């Protein structure tokens, strides 16, 4: 069999990319920009919540209690209220996120061994932040309760109170619980999905629009040669973008690849080929660059952002939506990426995901080849 004639198309594609700085910009600058944006701006850690205190008692005990909030980095002291009527203003104007109200009987109740109640008003407009804030407040109050209980036990002359369960948390893979560590692998999937699908779709549709595709079609070039010639340049650029994200991730967020680089490259290649196949497939369905761009964005960017588990955990989604996520290649790629980069685990931990990615790549390339052959006829 004659060897495949792919080089002229690859060379032409690279020459065009080199000429059109916009494509190169999209392929290289956007990933870097997104890494900055997502790494720094998209932060799920809730720290420095603005907190106001309305202390009706103003005793030593109540002050000691409120101090507990401000020694942690989770809360910032903003204001001490003089009357209850100020609460509305503070929350409405978003001057504070939460108000802590200590009753006038706080220390007396505690001394008598009665239970007392602390009221907390939280701005629930951002539900996930509010839930996290409530969690922090709750744990501080629990700690304080325990302290009060053990003190009263000792006063009653009993031996020191020991808790039946000693809680010893160890957080694996991302011990500091940094959001960036969780996001960077997802970002790789997100960016690769965009670059592969959009760039291949546009590069094919542009040729159809210009009429150069027709000129290629009357030549003896085979569909497989055209497909390879069209995809190889974008595989190379996308791999380059991946390496760039990993290097930037290491420099900026101290994220190193814990697992095998070889395995990482392999699954990335599967994912890339799948994305390119999808891009080619779209390009056989639409006629204009404008439409191609829109379809490519809708098919690649949105679901990958929302449904792949990149930002929002899949297990929190309604069951039907969870079902939908199974058709997204990014879902599987994300699991593999996090396994390799953050956990450093071997193939045994994610072989099933890798197989899905491989099958997906094969299916996409087959469908697009069939479609290509059809439009080349």
């Amino acid at each position: 069999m004659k060897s495949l004639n792919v080089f002229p198309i690859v060379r032409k594609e690279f020459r065009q990319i080199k000429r059109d700085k916009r494509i190169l910009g999209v392929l290289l600058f956007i990933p870097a920009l997104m890494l900055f944006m997502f790494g720094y701006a998209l932060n799920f850690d809730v720290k420095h919540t603005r907190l106001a205190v309305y202390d009706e008692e103003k005793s030593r005990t109540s002050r000691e209690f409120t101090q507990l909030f401000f020694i942690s980095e989770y809360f910032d002291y903003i204001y001490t209220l003089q009357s209850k009527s100020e609460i509305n203003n503070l929350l409405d104007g978003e001057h504070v996120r939460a108000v802590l109200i200590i009753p006038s009987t706080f220390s007396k109740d505690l001394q008598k061994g009665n239970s007392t109640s602390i009221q907390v008003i939280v701005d629930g407009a951002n539900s996930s932040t509010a839930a996290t804030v409530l969690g922090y407040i709750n744990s501080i109050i629990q700690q304080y309760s325990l302290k009060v209980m053990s003190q009263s036990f000792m006063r009653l002359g009993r031996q020191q109170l020991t808790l039946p369960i000693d809680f010893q948390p160890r957080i694996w893979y991302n011990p500091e619980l940094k959001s960036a560590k969780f996001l960077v692998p997802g970002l790789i999937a997100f960016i690769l999905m965009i670059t592969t699908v959009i760039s291949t779709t546009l590069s094919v549709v542009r040729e159809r629009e210009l009429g150069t595709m027709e000129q290629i079609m009357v030549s003896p070039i085979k569909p497989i040669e055209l497909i390879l010639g069209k995809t190889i340049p974008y595989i190379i650029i996308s791999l380059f973008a991946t390496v760039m994200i990993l290097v930037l991730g290491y420099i900026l967020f101290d994220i190193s690849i814990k697992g095998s680089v070889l395995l990482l490259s392999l699954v990335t290649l599967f994912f890339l080929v799948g994305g390119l196949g999808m891009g080619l497939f779209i390009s056989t369905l639409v006629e204009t660059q404008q439409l191609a761009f829109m379809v490519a964005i809708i098919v690649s960017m949105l679901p990958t952002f929302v449904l792949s588990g990149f930002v929002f955990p899949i297990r929190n989604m309604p069951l039907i939506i969870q079902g939908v996520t199974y058709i997204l290649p990014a879902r599987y790629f994300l699991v593999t990426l996090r396994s390799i980069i953050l956990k450093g685990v071997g193939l045994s931990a994610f072989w099933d995901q890798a197989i899905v990615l491989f099958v997906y790549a094969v299916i996409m390339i087959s469908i697009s080849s069939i479609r290509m052959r059809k439009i080349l006829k």
Partner: protein
Amino acid sequence: MIFSKNRIQKHETTYSSDSYAVIAEGLTKRFGHFTAVDNISFKVKKGEVFGFLGPNGAGKSTTIRMLCGLLSPTSGQATVGGYDIAKEPEAVKERIGYMSQRFSLYEDLTVEQNIDFYGGVYGLEGQRMEDRKYWAIEMAGLKGKEKTLSHALSGGWRQRLALGCSILHEPPILFLDEPTGGVDPVSRRNFWDLIYDLSNRGVTVFVTTHYMDEAEHCNTIGLIYSGKLIAAGSPTELKHNLDKYSVFEVVCTNPVDAMEHLRQQVWTAETSIFGSAFHVSTLNVPEVHMKIQKTLEKENIVTSRIQKIIPSLEDVFIHLIAEEDERSNGKAIHL
């Protein structure tokens, strides 16, 4: 022009089937209910310039696209260079060059890069690639502009570069789909010189056009109208269609009324406007020249010239199209 017309009369002997570059038999293409090409058959001799002539939408491009393997025919068959377009499209593709009105060049690549690409696609390598690149740049007159973006070239240059790119692999058969559309007259002439040059070297050229003057320069013309091939032959042969008529050119004060009055005469076949004058074809009745003059005088139309002329191809086509319309309308009524 550099070419000489005397070479046009060279094909008068009988031919065996392998002396044809293209043979189409009952070629038909339907898009849904619309029949773009309706059962057409023709033969193109090796080395000739075959002109496919017809109004826009007549089916010229559809036919050429079927012959190049860009469209598959609904029915019928065709061979190009001896290979069946449906069964051996790959063999066909290696033997043809194709260029359309859109001059499919990459505008963001330079002259040289465009040649590199198309040469590469056709599998040219090494010395042959270098030779052909040199040839194409010379041919298109683009020496010294190798590094210019094709986007920056004027229409005529782009057209010649596109032609060069489509024949880098030296195909024996060249398909040109309205190659001179949107190009200035001087460039058109230069382009036809290139076509004759190729034809002289034995390349078969199949060209579609709607320019009558271009059609006059073809060895053989096929006239396609509403998807049907309504006439084929050399320009001289086609003009014999008008042997039973005389064609006069009339210059007068009110040509529109004059045509209307002449059309009512039994001996008038057709009238058609040609610039400020008009042509009238009449049956060969005695003293028809005088009859025209008298008809117009009666209507107070002042004629400055009535002259018997040799019919042009345009006269022939207007005649043939009118006949075809009559035939299909007649059919419709009888149905």
